[in-house]
């Protein structure tokens, strides 16, 4: 684990990368990483996230700034700009049921080859997917999803990179930290090793590559 500055982000993240980004309508999203992507015009991104938030918030700002070429998300209803870009063919959007998205990200992180879910059976979500019947119930085989980067937001880190999330800002963050090749965590503060109890650490430092402390340019 290495602590980095906003400027150093631009040496690590290349345009055209795929990135999982934590957050739920902006809550638990790494806003300063997003700020830097916008300032440095790092575009052509494939974004895997719960949603595209609002035009002026979180991942929505990446969309408005035209840095996203593809989005794999469960919801775009709160961001008219995503809908507009999608309808005009400027952005590719793959809609995934939220629970399925969570399990697909998790599957990658924990080394499963896929999961069987009843969600989406008999709907357009089933199209092009393998189905299996287990005990008379039909399931969709949903496959793991991976990315080069995970941009996550935690409340606190310790100097080993152990992360602790807060309330509903947790959401997809710990799942994404497990699933990407390079994990960059934006945190509000860094505390001494040992000051977060073993039960309050949600993501271990050994899987975190970089820490960006908010407000440190």
């Amino acid at each position, binding site marked *: 684990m290495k602590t980095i500055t906003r400027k150093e982000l631009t040496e690590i993240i290349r345009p055209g990368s795929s990135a999982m980004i934590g957050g*739920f309508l902006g809550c638990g999203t790494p806003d300063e990483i997003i700020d830097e992507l916008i300032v440095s015009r790092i575009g052509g991104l494939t974004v895997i996230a719960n949603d595209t938030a609002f035009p002026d918030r979180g991942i929505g700002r990446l969309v408005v700034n035209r840095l996203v070429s593809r989005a794999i998300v*469960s919801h775009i*209803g709160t961001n008219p700009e995503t*809908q507009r870009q999608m309808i005009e063919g400027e952005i590719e959007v793959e809609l995934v049921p939220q*629970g399925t998205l969570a399990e697909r*990200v998790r599957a990658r992180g924990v080394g499963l080859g896929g999961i069987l879910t009843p*969600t989406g059976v008999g709907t357009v979500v089933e199209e092009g997917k393998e189905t299996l019947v287990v005990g008379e119930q039909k399931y969709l085989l949903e496959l793991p999803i991976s990315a080069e980067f995970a941009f996550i937001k935690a*409340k606190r880190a310790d100097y080993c990179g152990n992360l602790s999330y807060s*309330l509903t800002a947790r*959401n997809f963050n710990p799942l994404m930290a497990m699933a990407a090749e390079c994990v960059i965590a934006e945190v509000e503060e860094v505390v001494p090793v040992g000051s977060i109890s073993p039960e309050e650490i949600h993501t271990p430092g050994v899987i975190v590559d970089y820490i960006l402390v908010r407000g440190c340019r």
Partner: protein
Amino acid sequence: MDPREVIARRVAKELKDGDLVNLGIGIPTLVANYIPSGVNVFFQSENGIIGMGPEPLEGMENPDMTNAGGMFVTALPGAMAFDSAMSFGFIRGGHLDITVLGALQVDEKGMLANWMIPGKMIPGMGGAMDLVTGAKKVIVAMTHTGKGTPKIVRKCNFPLTSIRPVDLIVTELAVIEPGPEGLVLKEVAPNVSIEEIQKSTDARLIISDRLCEMTL
């Protein structure tokens, strides 16, 4: 009474003590305001909490504490936070007693369409597909028509949310229960006739033997 309040009040009567409940955005959210006294329920929100409380007082908002609509909420004593996989584990795993959602269309078989109007509006399914597939009881809370167009139809022509039928439809005019024979009209709102309801409904309604007036 405002139609939205009628719907929310009637849905609230379906909640039982100890239930784990998920309320969708819009009218469903209002249900929380009308929980019968003596009934204690736990609200789950897809974004990762059980034990969600009402909106905070001004100045007491916390950026890390929002509901699935992105609005600031509070945590009640005994609240629990978790990640998205766990959150949908509760939903898909059958631990959620009741989910209340809005609808674009519901049909004679109880099928729900609520996430997309082809070529027009594509908000995405969010958690709706998991909620309808996984909750023990699915209640649709919606105005009976959308700008005069019936939302209770013979067959949904918008994309379905799930092939699992909903358990109850509550509108400002009626309470309707999908069953093996079709949609059963169980309750009518005060001063509303069966004919008026059928007129605003594209699907054929079966009149329950025990039809009664909706009480709020």
